[in-house]
């Protein structure tokens, strides 16, 4: 029998496995996916948000605890647990030495991400390179890893972990870390959570999943059924507007379209529905998934003209191109009359000052609802381009309630040997909203805590308790 069973194979699971192993525990890690798809959403990540009081290798300037906390408070609208949030923030300032020891390498912020050069440490090669390093280190340290090993339920006794069932096999351990992700890949669950809207649509049917197909939420559901304390709203998630042509799963970073603030967004009826120039795109991209989800057909169309070309990060798929706006409307399948009226109204309302997409410039609309507050220039220079966008779910926030020791709770009572980390508990810190890289900060901090606690619990656990 192993001391510690880790269920999941992403960043949080690996951090837990490594910490438990370093604490002397024998560790078995069960990854639901085959080896080539291992590590869930972690393979798509690129950085972690780090507190630091002075410049550090790849991080410029300083990002003190208080500023990090205020950022988190702002994006979550206060739906966060200050104690746990500060725990994550502090851990983010010290975890990178440990990460490097396990082979993770960092790089300066990527071109096009200068705004993150102070706050976020980028993994060289991205998240897949990070998990590759962790898996190598885990194997070197003697952590046992099993792929194609989805766990469907746990055997609990009075809030204590006894065993996990993986495809009929009963696997006992002295303690257990749950780090098996959210339920974002489970389209049926998303459908239920989002329900039917006033138009009779099931909005979630039109969502795309930006990450893994393996986060089916099976364990989350099992834990809910077994009475674990739950936190969060099932419709809350990291949700951005992505290219509608993206694959259903694993589209990752490249499916984003960063042209929204340079043009206009219209819905299926050819109408604008939100201020595209409210703020810098990196501060606004995370709200557009929800905005598009609320439109008819859960689809939006970003329209730009040639003036915008070369001013935004290149998207993976080329835009639909046309020489006139009515042609573009037809090519996008939009009602041409309504679309033209929207564009004409917008163009007429533009008050162009000195355009500069790198600052909050003075180009804005007047007398238009909704307004466009910055970067408003008439869309009049052919060729024109259009991108259809859909809501893309990165991960869901519904999770298990936990504390500073990463313990799972049942009816307000913490378990002695069952712990949780990663997306399965991120909702404790992220009630809603998102700020770049904080998912990995939470996963790393709680993964490490859960691993340490699980090793400790395994040493305390008497041999016969699980017999």
């Amino acid at each position, binding site marked *: 029998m192993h001391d510690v069973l880790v269920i999941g194979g992403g960043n949080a699971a690996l951090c837990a496995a490594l910490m438990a192993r370093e604490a002397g525990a024998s560790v078995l890690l069960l990854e639901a996916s085959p080896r080539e798809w291992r590590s869930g959403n972690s393979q798509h990540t690129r950085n972690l948000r780090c507190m630091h009081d002075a410049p550090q290798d790849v991080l410029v300037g300083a990002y003190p605890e208080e500023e990090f906390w205020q950022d988190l408070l702002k994006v979550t609208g206060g739906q966060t647990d200050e104690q746990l949030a500060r725990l994550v923030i502090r851990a983010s300032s010290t975890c990178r030495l440990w990460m490097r020891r396990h082979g993770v390498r960092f790089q300066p912020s990527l071109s096009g991400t200068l705004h993150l050069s102070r706050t976020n440490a980028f993994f060289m*090669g991205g998240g897949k390179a990070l998990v*590759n390093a962790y898996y190598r280190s885990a194997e070197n340290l003697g952590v046992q890893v099993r792929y194609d090993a989805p766990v469907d339920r746990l055997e609990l006794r009075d809030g204590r972990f006894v065993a996990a069932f993986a495809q009929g096999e009963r696997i006992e351990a002295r303690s257990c870390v749950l780090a098996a992700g959210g339920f974002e890949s489970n389209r049926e669950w998303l459908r239920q959570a989002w329900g039917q809207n006033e138009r009779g649509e099931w909005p979630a049917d039109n969502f795309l999943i930006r990450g893994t197909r393996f986060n089916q939420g099976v364990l989350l559901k099992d834990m809910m059924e077994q009475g674990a304390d739950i936190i969060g709203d099932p419709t809350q998630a990291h949700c951005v507007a992505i290219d509608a042509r993206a694959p259903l799963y694993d589209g990752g970073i490249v499916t984003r379209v960063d042209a929204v603030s340079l043009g206009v967004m219209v819905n299926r009826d050819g109408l604008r529905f939100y201020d595209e120039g409210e703020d810098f795109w990196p501060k606004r991209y995370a709200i557009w998934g929800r905005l598009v989800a609320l439109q008819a057909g859960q689809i939006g169309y970003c329209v730009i003209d040639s003036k915008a070309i070369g001013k935004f990060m290149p998207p993976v798929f080329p835009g639909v191109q046309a020489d006139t706006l009515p042609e573009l409307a037809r090519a996008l399948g939009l009602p041409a009359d309504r679309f033209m009226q929207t564009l004409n109204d917008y163009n007429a309302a533009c008050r162009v000052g000195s355009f500069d997409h790198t600052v909050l410039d003075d180009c804005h609309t007047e007398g238009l609802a909704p307004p466009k507050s910055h970067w408003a220039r008439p869309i009049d220079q052919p060729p024109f381009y259009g991108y259809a966008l859909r809501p893309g779910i990165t991960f869901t926030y519904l999770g298990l309630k936990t504390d500073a020791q990463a313990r799972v709770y049942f009816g307000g009572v913490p378990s002695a040997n069952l712990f949780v980390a990663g997306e399965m508990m991120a909702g404790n810190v992220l009630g809603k909203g998102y700020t770049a890289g904080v998912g990995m900060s939470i996963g790393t901090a709680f993964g490490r805590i859960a691993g340490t606690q699980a090793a400790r619990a395994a040493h305390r656990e008497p041999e016969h308790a699980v017999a």
Partner: protein
Amino acid sequence: MQSLEALTREAVALASGQTITADISAPGRAAEAEVARQMQICNACRYCESFCAVFPAMTRRLHFSEADAHYLANLCHNCGACLHACQYAPPHEFAVNVPRAMAQVRRETYSDYAFPRALGALYRRNGLTLALATAGGLALFLVLVLALRGTLLHEPLAGNFYAVFPHNLMVTMFGAAFGFAVLALAIGAVRFWRGQSPGPVTAPSAAEATRHALALTYLDGGHGDGCNEADDRSTLLRRRFHHLTFYGFLLCFASTSVATLYHYLLGQPAPYPVISLPVLLGTVGGIGLLIGPAGLLWLNLRRHPLHGDPGQRTMDRAFIVLLFATSLTGLALLALRDTGFMALLLAVHLGTVLALFLTLPYGKFAHAVYRSAALLKWAIERRQPDRLQLGSD
């Protein structure tokens, strides 16, 4: 929604490489089109930016022309880091495998720019090319020995090669073969450079490119841990074996050059004693040229199956084996030059060297020329202001 479905189909086709992007429409340019397809995906991701020069060079572009594909392909050192780090690598439907796509374009570069052009086809069946060249070289010299001396074995000649082959014969043959190789490769480099127009070469850019070429900077993985071989582990072994091969080759070349100077300037013809500059340089270089290629071959045989272009494995391995054989026969000749086997060993060594020289412009060696050119272009290009002013993502 109809148009969206059509677009989605188009996107899926694009992502899986079924269509050719608008930038490249000429038929038969599938390799370049594949690089353009993959670069469009990479340019929207950029996670690999610090591994090497390919990705920073990519971010200076929005579209990837044929010339861009050739430039980036030759800038790629096939280290494998980006493949193992790639969230879009197979089995992902985007099927991104940058090292392979780049390797496939490199072969197009070599054959497109070959001089004379018709011989570019030799890259396609390169194992056969090198095998035939070697067999031909060996046969030629063995027949020559028989013709000149009537027998392959003989009484010891105190290491005097010229008793077997007259000095002028050797100089003429090898001078011509080597001279032609240099000419052919230079013409290829000029043709490649003309298609690139990177701007004027400056001293700092030339110095930087030279340093990166000589140090194999981009085999360090960007983090200094090295490149990938059999799996996602980084190792410096390939860089070290390549150094042994390259500098071993250079020392052997220096040995020949010094001997030439001794011959013409000092009037001291071969053979040279064991403790002499030509023999010492040749011995040390020869040992490097044994260990280096042996190591490279060992790594090559263990390479991850997704690395590089499987269609070029024979080219890579044939060249490595030929280098190894050159060194092995040279060292054997040195060891046994005072015996009755000298003429035979000399014929074998000279046949191997001739095959090496003749195939330099039509085999793996070409990578040195085009990679150096690509490194020079990058050193020039990165000093120029970036024309793109992309907003933040």
